[in-house]
């Protein structure tokens, strides 16, 4: 890196807003997972749908394919995925705040 670039590098400020948005994009991908032959994105909408079902339920995956699932078992999977990734997201977000 030449002197001019070094100076620009040192003067640059951390872009919190853009970093936050990029982190969101990253975790949108991390929330996606496969289950029972379908693809799902863990989140409040899916959790709420599953809370409304009992036993065997048929719901549409991300590709609008109807998939047969066990509502209770799947709820546990989605909930676990959601919490795992949200925790990781929070840790990275807090790291990001330190760069301010």
């Amino acid at each position, binding site marked *: 890196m030449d002197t001019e670039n070094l100076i620009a590098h040192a003067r640059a*400020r*951390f872009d919190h807003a853009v970093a936050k948005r990029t982190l969101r994009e990253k975790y949108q991908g991390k929330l*996606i*997972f496969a289950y029972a032959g379908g*693809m799902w*994105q863990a989140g409040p909408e899916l959790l709420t749908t599953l809370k409304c079902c009992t036993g065997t339920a048929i719901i549409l995956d991300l590709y609008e394919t109807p998939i047969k699932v066990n509502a209770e078992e799947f709820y546990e999977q989605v909930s676990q995925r959601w919490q795992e990734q949200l925790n990781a997201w929070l840790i990275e977000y807090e790291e990001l705040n330190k760069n301010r």
Partner: protein
Amino acid sequence: MTTGVLIFAFNNQHIDYLAMANWSAQNIRRHLKLPVAVVTDSTIPQQYHFEQVIYATPEGNYERRFDDLNQPVTWYNGNRVDAYTLSPWSNTLVLDADYVVASNQLKTVLDIDQDFVAHQRAYDVGGHPNFNEHNTFGQYQMPMWWATVMFFRRSEQAQLIFESMQTIRNNWNHYKSLYNISRTTYRNDYALSIALGTVNGHVLNHPGIPWSLATVTHNQRLTQVDVDRYRVDFVAQDGKPKWLYLTQDFHAMGKVQLGDIIDNYS
């Protein structure tokens, strides 16, 4: 049933795509635990490691101007449409040599129960809204599909998509006029987008990879700060120099900067 990654690496006078592919292969093994096949016309240096090497003659001798090189370079990008016939795997993940694997995110793609998927939306990690223009092509602003990451299973549909891409590559002037594309250079992204439209009966509803492709553009400065941790310096919308850390997979459009990272690594 075999699953692996396929990378096309045809060097030109300025860019060592084979070195990029070798570096990427190491990242792929570490994160995805998948074998890598490279398609090239170069002799493989002894220190490089690929599970399979497929020799091919480069097709599509195009001139393309990369902003970070500041001059037109020869760009051999015509072979990608042959991925279906060249791939040694039953399930193939085709990656650009400049796609940086920094996580196991692509493992999710392998679970998708579709014959062919690719990214439908890319975004600029620096948040520049003008980048959205790249998510369409041609005067009619047809939706773009990115050939940077493609996953296919051996199937009639995947074969049809690649055959359509071959037809488009072989008749590029016709398709360029049909879609009113102002750029003269053939691009795999355009061929893929047109092929997916054609194969799906022009209803534009082909299933895609359900997240967006992070992109570091030519005019952003990319440096590696740690394993799987990169810093991107860019000029924000307010004209001020800004930076952020990137800890995810991304498409590095700046070949020179990625080349520097790889040189420092080896």
